């Protein structure tokens, strides 16, 4: 706010050049953004289009696609299935990994880190394609084929090591003096866990929960393998049935379903990040 500074540059050419440069930069950014945003755009427009193609275009507006999807017996069901699987796994993963991570963080066992790394490595195999046959046989043996529980257990087993890994990091950064302080006041170990440790690592628990839901929501292989009846199939599997016998995708159904399929995950991320604030370490939001 000094009077000595000229309002505009004395040289008349400069503003024009700066303007051109600015326009150029924005144009470039817009193009790059558009490239990456196109699939999203398609997801937002195609469901409302009477005859959607594989290109994003201004829709010939209609809600008929939603009505058609509503009539498809498996579509709505499948979202409920996905929800059961995701929530079931998330609850199991959070509860088990919290207990395991707490113990691993507080008790020193010889070879603890090696054990964790080995588990992490193996876990990617457990839920991977390589273990398809053994998993199916095991589930058949335990009478867990075509049950949600079977899918939840297999997915939980696969996700636990990584979840323990993430949570142990949170627990490690929580000062022991919090717990010792509570112990001196007479709190039992479970009480300490409930009153002190869990609230302090809540952002970590939220991270693991959301991550588990997202993983399970998008998992195709395990439910495809273990759930035999079509009415139990989760969304990721049902999507696969929206093809004609000739292998042609039914774009109207697929796009509409994709939109419904992705919305819950987006909403969950927004909710949890507002509620807990994803931060990687300890502290608690006021």
């Amino acid at each position, binding site marked *: 706010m000094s009077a000595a500074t000229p309002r505009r540059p004395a040289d008349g050419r400069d503003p024009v050049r700066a303007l051109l440069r600015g326009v150029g930069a924005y144009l470039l950014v817009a193009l790059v953004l558009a490239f990456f945003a196109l699939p999203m755009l398609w997801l937002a427009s195609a469901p409302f289009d009477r005859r959607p193609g594989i290109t994003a275009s201004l829709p010939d507006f209609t809600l008929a696609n939603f009505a058609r999807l509503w009539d498809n017996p498996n579509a709505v069901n499948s979202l409920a299935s996905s929800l059961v699987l995701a929530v079931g796994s998330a609850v199991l993963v959070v509860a088990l990994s919290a207990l395991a991570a707490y113990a691993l963080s507080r008790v020193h066992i010889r070879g603890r880190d090696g054990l964790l790394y080995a588990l992490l490595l193996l876990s990617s195999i457990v839920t991977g394609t390589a273990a398809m046959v053994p998993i199916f046989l095991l589930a058949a043996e335990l009478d867990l084929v075509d049950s949600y529980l079977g899918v939840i257990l297999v997915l939980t087993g696969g996700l636990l090591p990584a979840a323990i890994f993430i949570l142990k990091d949170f627990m490690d950064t929580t000062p022991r*003096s919090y717990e*010792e302080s*509570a112990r001196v006041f*007479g709190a039992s170990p479970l009480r300490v866990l409930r*009153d002190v440790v869990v*609230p302090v690592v809540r952002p970590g628990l939220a991270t693991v929960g959301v991550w588990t839901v997202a993983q399970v929501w998008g998992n195709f292989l395990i439910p495809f393998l273990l759930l035999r009846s079509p009415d139990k199939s989760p969304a990721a599997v049902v999507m696969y049935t929206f093809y004609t016998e000739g292998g042609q995708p039914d774009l109207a159904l697929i796009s509409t379903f994709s939109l419904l399929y992705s919305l819950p995950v987006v909403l969950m991320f927004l909710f949890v990040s507002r509620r807990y604030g994803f931060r990687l370490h*300890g*502290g*608690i939001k*006021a």
Partner: protein
Amino acid sequence: MADITLNRLAKVYPGGVRALSDLDLTVRDGEFFALLGPSGCGKSTLLRTLAGLEEATGGSVHIAGQDVTALPPGDRDIAMVFQDYALFPHMTVHENIAYPLKIKKVGKGERAAKARETAEELGLGHLGERRPGQLSGGQQQRAALARAMACHPRVFLFDEPLSNLDARMRLEARTFLKKLQRELGVTTVFVTHDQAEALAMADRVAVMESGALRQVGTPTEVFRRPASTFVASFIGSTPMNLLDGELVAGGGAVRVSGRELPVPDGARAHLKEGDEVVYGVRPEYLRWSERAVDAALSGTVSVVENLGSAHLVTLECDGGLGVQVVVPEEHEPAVGARGWAVPREDRALLYRDGELVGATPAEVPA
């Protein structure tokens, strides 16, 4: 009545580190007791063993006559303030203060009233709804104190409660804590590695070195008559001068750097001619003289440090021996000047093999 008695208390950590070796100690009821020692000497271990956070590997701990050695921390009726305060970050100040009461199943209304009252007492009244993260270091410290106070324990244990405060706050907190302890009259053990803090606050001080007690006594006793050269060099803001010497013929004087100094009264009976001793005298107990004096150390001034109301003068004696003297502000000597340092006879001490010569049994812990 809540005195604390340690009986041959020992702690060996799983790795084989011997942190406490056979300590015998009694802390009296209502006493403000300081555990003082250099880093790693076992102060925290001792405090944590009192609290029950560490299991003793030998000996026993009695609180108010009750053997608590095997009791879990929650059953000992103690409260501990940790160095990092350990306030729960997800609870407000009031909730933090009320938490011990909640565990003791005190009703909700009573709990809240007690928390508010204690917070008020410690000047935290307007901060009750804040979280620890929104408090200054001094306020956090008082919140931690309030939490310890609210459950009316028999014993307070403080692990370096002031070390996270800046120098000015620390002085304030020192006075505050001492006054508070006096008012509450609760037996208090506090750990510090700052000798000035221990002398200023405690009724009695225990000086520790590598897991053992070197001396237990009032601040005055420990300051005036350190029982060993270790305690002597550890206590005092300017370390004691410890000068190698030898008893001259007749046993009436000690020869230090070519000068003969009188032997202190209490030590005379225990010494004989030719004994190698260490002559100990605090810089505060040396009188400065610009004129030659007989029974005095002499040398040239090599360094003058300003202490504010006095000067700390380093005198380089003949033979290269360095002696520090506190000189009143009006006598500031020039560097290079000649000077004499006269020991106050009743404050000079003699050490043989690191131990005080002529110490009374009370001064040397078993």
